[in-house]
């Protein structure tokens, strides 16, 4: 006789799950995001809007803008550009022009970095130490870089001044004391660490170049500059993109060097927008917070052009990845 197994009459019900358990996958990312996003909103996103608002006021920085400041609409911008019967701000024009010099000349760091990377992309003994020592300038603070270069440029006793003296070039007042040359002197100082950064990006990129393609091209008779231009550089595109991004941002952030090396001088000839904002608000000559905010907004808008391009490129990549 067979005994059939006892079949339970009630069906299994899973233990009741709470609301959180049921929605866990939807809720978790927001819990993880909350602290980071909150911090970022308070300290980065909100201040951008506040600066925009500030740029429509005259305010000396005391008390609150809305009670102590005076709403002046677009007047600050009119002053900057010389619109509506205002006289254009000469110092703003100098800063803008210098920023353009920075942007263009700073890009030299990219080919210079590629050049050094190509020079160092060998496998001789001790090359790793050479690579890291070439990268060295990037690790040092811009404050120290600025100090060192300003000693280099000292009138009479600076090494640079002595060396240019050998070939009979004399720069009056030393590089940093000369309104024509000072900005170029500062840019040269900035190019030093920036080139090191681009170099390390390209060294990493060169490491990943497909050796089979290089060999194939070599068999086809490509070499030297042709090989570089048609085979290597296209493969270095991601490295070039990053180098471009960091160089543009570095150029527009050029505050430290200007502040350390010349403080905007001589005769205000080395001002850049980032320094001018600081000068108009927090320095003794400043206390025009609304006006400074208007300059900051212009700088932000210039940067926004590049940011949009960067984000657009990254978005194209993201779409490709999905």
């Amino acid at each position: 006789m067979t005994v059939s197994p006892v079949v339970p009459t009630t069906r299994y019900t899973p233990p009741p799950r709470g609301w959180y358990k049921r929605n866990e996958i939807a809720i978790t990312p927001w819990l993880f995001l909350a602290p980071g996003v909150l911090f970022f909103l308070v300290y980065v996103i909100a201040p951008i809007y506040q600066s925009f608002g500030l740029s429509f006021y005259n305010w000396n920085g005391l008390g609150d803008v809305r009670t102590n400041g005076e709403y002046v609409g677009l007047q600050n911008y009119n002053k900057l550009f010389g619109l509506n019967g205002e006289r254009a701000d000469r110092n703003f024009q100098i800063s803008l022009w210098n920023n353009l010099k920075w942007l263009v000349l700073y890009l030299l760091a990219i080919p210079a970095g590629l050049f050094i990377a190509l020079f160092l992309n060998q496998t001789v003994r001790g090359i790793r130490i050479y690579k890291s020592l070439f990268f060295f300038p990037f690790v040092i603070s811009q404050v120290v870089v600025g100090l060192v270069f300003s000693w280099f440029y000292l009138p009479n006793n600076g090494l640079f001044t002595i060396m240019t003296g050998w070939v009979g070039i004399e720069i009056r007042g030393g590089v940093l004391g000369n309104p024509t040359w000072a900005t170029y002197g500062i840019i040269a100082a900035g190019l030093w660490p920036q080139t090191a950064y681009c170099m390390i990006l390209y060294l990493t990129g060169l490491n990943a170049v497909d050796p089979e393609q290089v060999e194939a091209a070599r068999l086809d008779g490509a070499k030297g500059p042709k090989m570089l231009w048609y085979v290597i550089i296209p493969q270095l595109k991601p490295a070039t993109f990053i180098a471009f991004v960091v160089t543009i941002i570095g150029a527009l952030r050029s505050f430290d060097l200007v502040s350390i090396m010349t403080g905007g001088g001589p005769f205000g000839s080395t001002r850049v927008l980032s320094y001018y904002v600081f000068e108009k608000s927090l320095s003794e000559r400043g206390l025009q917070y609304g006006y400074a905010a208007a300059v900051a907004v212009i700088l932000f808008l210039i940067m926004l052009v590049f940011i949009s391009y960067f984000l657009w490129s990254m978005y194209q990549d993201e779409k490709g990845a999905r």
Partner: protein
Amino acid sequence: MFPTPVQKQSRAVQLGYQAFLPFALILWLLPLIAVMIFSIKPDVDFTSGNYWGWPSSFEGFNNYGKVFFESAMPRYLLNSVMITVPTVIGTVALACMTGFALGVYKFKGNLLIFFMFIAGNFVPFQILMVPVRDLTVDMGLYNTKTGLVLFHIAFQTGFATLFMRNFIRALPFPLIEAARVEGVAEWRIFFYVVLPLMKPAIAAMAVLIFTFIWNDYFWAVVLTQGPESQPVTAGITSFNAQYRAAYHLMSAGSIVAALPPVAMFFLMQKHFIAGLTLGAVK
């Protein structure tokens, strides 16, 4: 490999390359070598105009001794440590969480939040300057290390999130799915599955942010003043004002100020470069 390895070239080229390497390096690092020599020179070399020649006597111990025992430099260094270390810890903690959320989950607004972090990271500091300063003053944190740390954490979270998210994206996703099938809670997946795999990313971020924050000058000037809270980058300018034209002391001070990130770089070189070259290779 490009360019052609020197080993495949003639003996003359090989020797020429080997000989040129140290020469190029000295030329490249000339400014640094100059400060190093400056820092061991006696005072009299500068008054007598011997700026770039050989030191007339070795005064290294004297100069560095003065920096360490007769100036506010140790104070500034300590401040820098007390600003940098909490910032690194805070940023890495926040960015691990945001990176995990953005890298693992698919939800509406994911890409938007991610792009907000990236864009914010590129913004010029000056547009944040006055509002951040006011906010810090309102919180009673002006001229405190805490005020500086809070801002740095917030700002660096942007860059760190970009890095962490891309790193997590590259991890094998089936690992997380397997854990889910096993019924592991999501926060446990973060702690026990993802976090252990993120060690290299955490190391890279930690050294990079250490260097960035240690070298920060702008925010130090905007949010602090005086030796009780200023970090070494800002301190060095008042140090220099104290020893105006005393180049031997200024260079000794600069070297002391620059040393910690340099040491960090040489100790953790692999991670440092991995962090900096993120995205340079597809």
